[in-house]
């Protein structure tokens, strides 16, 4: 097959691929080694998150992270991690890449596992002593795991 472009791409080194790829999939692909517990996560949360997201994930200037008082079929519905998010891996993926918003990329992977565990705990999905790592996180079953309809190329 002849190239339709000039072929200027440079082969990426395995080291670069490892450094650059931070995508974490529902099956756990992309999760790094490391671990952290919800109790450890509370420390991380108080140090790095509480200023924007408020105590226990509520009442801050930024998004609510826990504490839904209504279900998804109430009016108004209450969309939080606990009621709405389908995969726990998303929490790790997003927190590691984007949070804390004031200093993104500043947490270690252990800290990200820990604060992820803490947010799952706040949303009553795991217990206060539970820990998260590359094996346990993808095994978490989120309450709204089946809550989504794939709409791609459907017509409604």
């Amino acid at each position, binding site marked *: 097959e002849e190239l*339709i472009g000039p072929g200027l791409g440079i082969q990426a080194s395995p080291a670069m691929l490892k450094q650059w790829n931070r995508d974490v999939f529902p099956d756990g692909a992309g999760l790094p080694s490391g671990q952290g517990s919800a109790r450890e996560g509370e420390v991380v949360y108080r140090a790095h998150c509480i200023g924007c997201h408020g105590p226990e994930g509520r009442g801050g200037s930024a998004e609510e992270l826990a504490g839904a008082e209504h279900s998804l079929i109430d009016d108004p519905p209450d969309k939080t991690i606990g009621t709405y998010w389908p995969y726990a891996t998303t929490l790790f993926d997003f927190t590691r890449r984007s949070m804390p918003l004031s200093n993104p990329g500043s947490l270690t992977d252990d800290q990200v596992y820990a604060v992820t565990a803490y947010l799952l705990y706040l949303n009553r999905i795991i217990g206060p002593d539970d820990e998260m790592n590359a094996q346990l996180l993808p095994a978490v079953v989120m309450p709204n795991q089946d809550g989504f*309809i794939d709409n791609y190329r459907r017509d409604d």
Partner: protein
Amino acid sequence: QGLIFTAATWGALSSQTATAELERESWTKQPGKPFSNYGAPSDYEKKVIRWIMANDDAPGNGVSWTPLHELEGIVTPSGLHFERHHNGVPAIDPERHRLLIHGLVKRPLTFSVSDLLQYPMQSRLCFIECGGNSNAGWRSEPIQTQVGYFHGMASCSEWTGVPLSVVLQEAGIKGRAKWIIAEGGDASMMNISLPLDKALDDCLLALYQNGERLRAENGYPLRLLVPGWEGVLNVKWLRRLHLAAKPVMARNETAKYTELLPSGKARQFSFVMEPKSVITHPSFGHRLDRHGLYQISGLAWSGRGKIAKVEVSADGGKSWAEAELQEPVLPQCFTRFRIPWRWQGQDVVLKSRAFDETGAVQPERSELIAKRGRHGYFHYNAIVSWAITEAGEISHVYL
């Protein structure tokens, strides 16, 4: 009254100067300002801005709207293109920026910006609309604000870039690949999953916007253009394309940009921006101060293709007339519609509805709500109604 005042002014001027040399306005009596290397709008147009709504604790998190109520034609000046940033506008050094293509490819590759500038390019006029545009329409009371601060998370530019299919061919797509996870190089490093077939169909690695290189707030030095699909997919500051068998299930395709239905289930991967139209003149914030002929003017667009027809009603939807579409009518592009209208001072409700070439029609608000409930938040595309009182005052109404 303004007009009578005008005539009076000229009368006064003329008697003052009847025997003197020809009177000239002050700006004709002295040399004007010199040339400029890069221009800016007139000092008299300082009110024409994108209005900013950001988080006090996170000033780079929020949106700014295109003031559609101040604009005409279909091109949005780049300085007024809407912004949606998750964590501000990065100042990326183009010489240090790289695009990485990896995952289910035969050859993981990196490209510098100067490499990509040597690739074959295409241009197209295309809108980008945030999936959350017009979401004030879901509120139970009609929002009273100018069109731009209601529907202005949509803008239209001429984008030029490299077809994504060209660099994907170079990397060599493996058979199992069905999705591409795109990642931005800002402080949010936002990622999102795009179906591979769309990527191969018409997506561009955009390098130029309205003729010049991208603006920083629109992704300089490189953004993904995903024609007709919700804005969040048009990843700015693009640094990585990860070919995968499945979507990554990122925060912005699960927690956000999904539409909760009354059943409690949510529509996910709702990509296409459905047909929409809105009358921009006259609209909220304008006032009709005379009876007589007006030109109704507005914008229509559809992520599915070309606008086929726009109808306008001046009686709240009882009867409709077909508006003229400004040529050229292009797919996934703003289309300006216009229709003459005579106002004799009666109470009226103006509406517009868009039809696209696939047969999709802009719904009435009641139809949209019947289908999607009141809590979808994204993808609001219902017909907009402007009520005009006998005094010429214009408000947004639900009908």
